[in-house]
Structure formats: C-alpha cells, structure tokens
C-alpha cells in the first residue's frame, strides 16, 4: 500500500476468540493493511468491558467459547447503550461454508464467516460492513 499523506482514520476492530493464535493472525493480517487498529480478546466474559474501553467500529466474534458463547456476548452488547449499534460479524468453525451461503452469509441476521477463511475474504466482508452497514455478499 502506498504511503498516504493524509491517511483516513483507522477503523477499530475488536476480535473476540478463545484461541489466542486466531486473534493474533486476524490482528496481524488486518493491521498490515494500515487501515485497521485491532484489539484481541480471548475471554468471552471480558468482551463487553474490553469493547467499552476500545470502542470498536466492528466486533469479530467467535461463537463457540468456554464460559459464554458468542450469542451471549452479542446479547450483552445489545444491552449496552454505547455498544448497541456496533456491527458484529461472527467467526465460526461450527458452520460449514455451504450452510452459511444458503443463509445469505448470516446467522440470526448477523454476518458470519466460516473458519477457515482467506484473509482476502475477511477483508472484503469487513470493508463491506464498514462501508455500507449492509450485510456483505456471502462467501464463495
């Protein structure tokens, strides 16, 4: 990416996944674009408080986690006035890509991406959400 004299404000993305290596690689791959500032959170129970502090533009949320799952975290976010409108995209290993495609790339109305995914696809879904607020196209 060429150097930009007036770079646009970098979007903040919070990645919540109990797998530290998943959050690490999501962070590295997003940050290298220079367009995102990424915060990792590996404990679902701390997701809301981290979000309050970090004030993300988008939350990437794993579904299957110990202590509480992604659905519970989402419910808590929706109850928080400051976070209610922050878009959330699920990252999940529990759903097959084909299954997700048939549901228009969403789970419960929320965009979702199935593990494993290519960084390119992740970036494209993130850009789509951040630019339009409209659920992006389903993954290939």
């Amino acid at each position, binding site marked *: *990416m060429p150097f930009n004299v007036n770079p646009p404000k970098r979007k903040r993305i919070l990645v919540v996944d*109990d*797998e530290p*290596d*998943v959050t*690490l*690689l*999501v962070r*590295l*791959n997003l*940050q*290298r*674009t*220079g367009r995102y500032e990424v915060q990792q959170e590996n404990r679902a129970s701390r997701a809301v408080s981290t979000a309050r502090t970090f004030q993300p533009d988008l939350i990437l949320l794993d579904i*299957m*986690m*110990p*202590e*509480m*799952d992604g659905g519970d975290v989402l419910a808590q976010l929706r109850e928080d006035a400051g976070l209610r409108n922050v878009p959330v995209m699920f*990252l999940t*290993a*529990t759903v097959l890509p084909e299954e997700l495609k048939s549901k228009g790339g969403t789970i419960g109305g929320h965009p979702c991406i*199935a*593990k*494993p*995914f*290519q*960084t*390119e696809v992740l970036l494209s879904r993130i850009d789509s959400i951040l630019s339009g607020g409209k659920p992006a196209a389903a993954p290939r």
Partner: protein
Amino acid sequence: MNGEPIQVLLLETTAAGAAPLENQLDDAGVARFALERVGRAEDAIDRLEKNHVDVVLLHLPPDQALRVLPSVQQRAPSVPVVVLTDEENESAAVQAVRGGAQDYLIRSKTDARTLAHGLRYAIERKRAEEALQKSEAFYHSLVESLPQNIFRKDLLGRFTFGNGRFCKEIGKSLDQIVEKTDFDFFPADLAAKYRADDQGVIESGKAFEVIEEHVTPVGEKLYVQVIKTPVHDAAGNLIGTQGIFWDVSERFRSEEQLKQAYADLAAKEAELLETMKLLKASHEELIQAQLQLIQAEKLESVGRLAAGVAHEVKNPLAILLMGLDYLAEAETREPAADQDVMRAMRDAVYRADVIVRGLVDFSANRRLDAIPQDLNAMIQRSLLLVKHELVGAHVAAIPELAEDLPPVLLDPTKIQQVFVNLFMNAIQAMPRGGTLTVRTRARRLQSVERDEGSRSAERFRAGDRVVIAEVEDTGTGIPPDKLVKVFDPFFTTKPTGRGTGLGLTVTRKIVELHHGVVSIANRDGGGARVTLMFKAHGSESHAIQREPAQAQAHPGR
C-alpha cells in the same frame, strides 16, 4: 556198641528171665541194652509215663500180649512194641502187627542176636513210620487246608485226585470224581476248554496260568485263577496234569468294574472336552458379539463427536490459512511477528494432527488388545475428543490426576470409549454448564466387600493394588429408583434422539472385559459420580492401605 544203651521195658509176668535176657542181648553184640522188667501191664504204663523207653518188649502169652498192646500204644504211641511169645500163633501174630506191634517173635525160634536185631529194627521202623506220617500230615495239610482247589488228571484227562475243597466245589465225593473227566461235571464248552488247556500243558511240558470263567454245579458263574503243571512219575515219564485254582471273582469283577469306570471316565472326559470346546466357541461368539456392540456404540459416539472434532480442526486450519496469507506478502508484514506466526502455524498443524489421529484411533475397530497403559493419558486424550462439547456446554473440565499412577492393562481405544461415554453423559447432565471432575488415584485394597451388583468380590482380593478413576458432574443426578437400571441395555434418561441407551451398558461391558468394575452413585452435593476400578498391572496381594473395594450404587438424596 557205642552211645547210650537202648532202654528196653520188658513186661514179663514171670520174674525169671530179665537179667539173663539182658546179658544175652548185650552179648549178641548188636547194641548195648538196658533192660527193665515189670510184671504187670499197669506198671508198664506207669513206667512209660515216667522215664524214657526206646522199645517195649511184651514177653507174654499171645492173648495177654494182644490185650496189653492197645493200652501201651495209647499211652506211648511213639514207642515201638515187640511181642515175644512162647507160642506160635499165626493169627495172633497178624493181629499184633495190625494192632501196631513192630514185630512178633517166637521165643523158641529167636536167639539173642535175632532178638537184639528185632528190637533195634523195631525202633528204626517206628522212627521211619513216624517220619512218614509227619510228612504225609504235612502234605495232606497243604493240599487239604489251603483254600485252593487241587486236582490231578491222567493223560486222558480223567481225574485221579481232587482235594476236599475241589470235591465240595464239584459237589461229589472223591470216589465219584476219580476216573471221570471235566465233561462229566462242566458245560461242554468249558470242559472242552479245560481239556485243551490240559493238552497244552502235556504238549509243552510247561506250566500254564490263566484267569478263566468257571461255572459251579449250581450254575454260579465265577472267575478263577488256574495254574496247571505237568505231572511226572519217579522215572520222569509224563503221566498227567495237576491243577490248582481259586476264586478271584471279586478281584476280577473289581478290575472289570475299574476298567469300565476308566472307560466311562474317558468317555465323560471326551464329552466334557467337547462341551468345553462348544462353550469356548460360544464364549468366543459372545465376545465377538460384545465387541461388535461396543464398536457399533462407538461409531455412534464418533458420529456425535465428528462435529466437535471438525470444529477443533477448523480453528487450526484457520490459523494455517491466515498464517500463509500473512507470510505470502513480504512488504507489509511485521518481521518481529514472523516467529510468532510460524510457531502458531506449527502448533496448529500438531493440534489438528492430534485431534484427527485421536478420532481415527478412537474409531478403529480392533479386538480387545490390552497393554500396560497410563490411565491418565487415556483420560487426557478422551478429554480432547470432547473438548468441543465441553466448550459448547460451558462445562469446565477439572482433571485431578494422581501423578504416581501405576500402569493398568488396557485397550486404549476401548477405555477412551468409556471415558468419552462418561464425559458425554456428564456434559448432557449439565445443560446449563457446570464442572466435570476427573480424578484418579491408586490404592491397595484392605478388604473386598461382597457386592452382587459390582462383582467386586469376583475380581479383586484384599491386598490388590488398584487404580481408581472417578468422573463427577454437577448436574441433576440420577433419580434413586433409576440408579439400578442405568447399566441396563436401552435404558436412558435422555430425551429421544439424544442417547442410544447403550452407553453405560457398553461402558460396563468394556470395563468387565478389562476385569474391572464400574459403579454409579449420586453425589451428596448433587450430580452423579461414576467410579471405575481396575487392577494395577503386576499387582501383588499385600494389604497395606485401608481401602474397601466398595463400588456399589448408593442411592442419592
């Protein structure tokens, strides 16, 4: 003329002749004689009772001599008696000799020398006679007193002798037997056999011995041992056969019974071996069927686990894919993170490998293949297989595994199946999350409590070193009335579609195949506890620590 003089007791009614007779006898030069005269028969008998007498000389008229002779004979049967009389009386002489007198001499025809010889020979004859009598008595006793049948036959098979016992056996007197053959007393076939045996002895000249059938005249069938030998005369000519036989029916029948018993036993043994073979085959079939059931139930578990395992693999795959993307573009990456990324990718490969291999191992259909294993390792691998389910149900797994656990003879995949089953049950019992505790410890059994349900007593003995595993959940527990049924096939407390009803049945079967016991109980604080107990590999029976083999189902709250 040497040695002691011959003591002669002379009974003579006239006192005239004693001294001259003694002198005459001595002078004869045959032997020395000591003559003592008595005048009456009573004195003679008295004298015979008191002192030794070699010979009695009755110098009496014939009729007197014949009267005295019996009483002298009776008083001293072994002392020879010689009658010396003045009259020649042939009839008296014959009577005297028949009555036991050794000689009958006529005084007028007998000089001193003849008389001396007569006395001397009388003594010798009497001795010979007595010896013969003794010998006869000896042989007679042998033949007649022993409980054996003895007979003799001539060359034509005619009886020449039979002892009393033989006569009694035949039921005839000796007179009725002599000159008769076996054909006169026995059934024709037996008689023919006896005759053939005799002939064999005659031809071979050798003894013959056999145990054979014998039929008594009253038709009783006996078994007798027979020995037959050839008989020769003094010149060595073969003159017939002799035989001895005795009843061995009892012994023979006992032996026959023993033989029959042996044969029966052999037949029984063969039967038993055949039964054992069938039993073994049917046991083998049962084991096969059990292993198939175990495998079928396991495949069901594999199906249930597959989604979880897929999830566990997809995370590493996501890490790999993102890692590749990251490393592919050199310009924008943070070199400082390279090592971290590559470490994460390597870890991901290992994790995926472990989880996939775990499932493949777990689903493998093998026979029971027990090798010394670390039970803790089995538990760790099983926990990995259900990790997804644990996370999904918000169940925290807390392994409390003893570090010094002795090895146990286990089939790894079967035992993992047990733990996966128990973990899945525990997870399903805690729909709103909870704690799954897995605890292991080793103990030395102090005593074994007899408990039909757990079968502990059959498998364990006091002093055995055992390894115990407990799986505890914080779920709802099991209704007390259902505790005894949980190991029954197709019994389930789960909603339709959530369990086969075979999980605990198969669990118990697997544990039993490992000679262990499994029991289930409700915990005091809520939830259920399943206890497994296995004998430690190489366990020795030395009681050290108190730990009753108590693995029975306790009713819960």
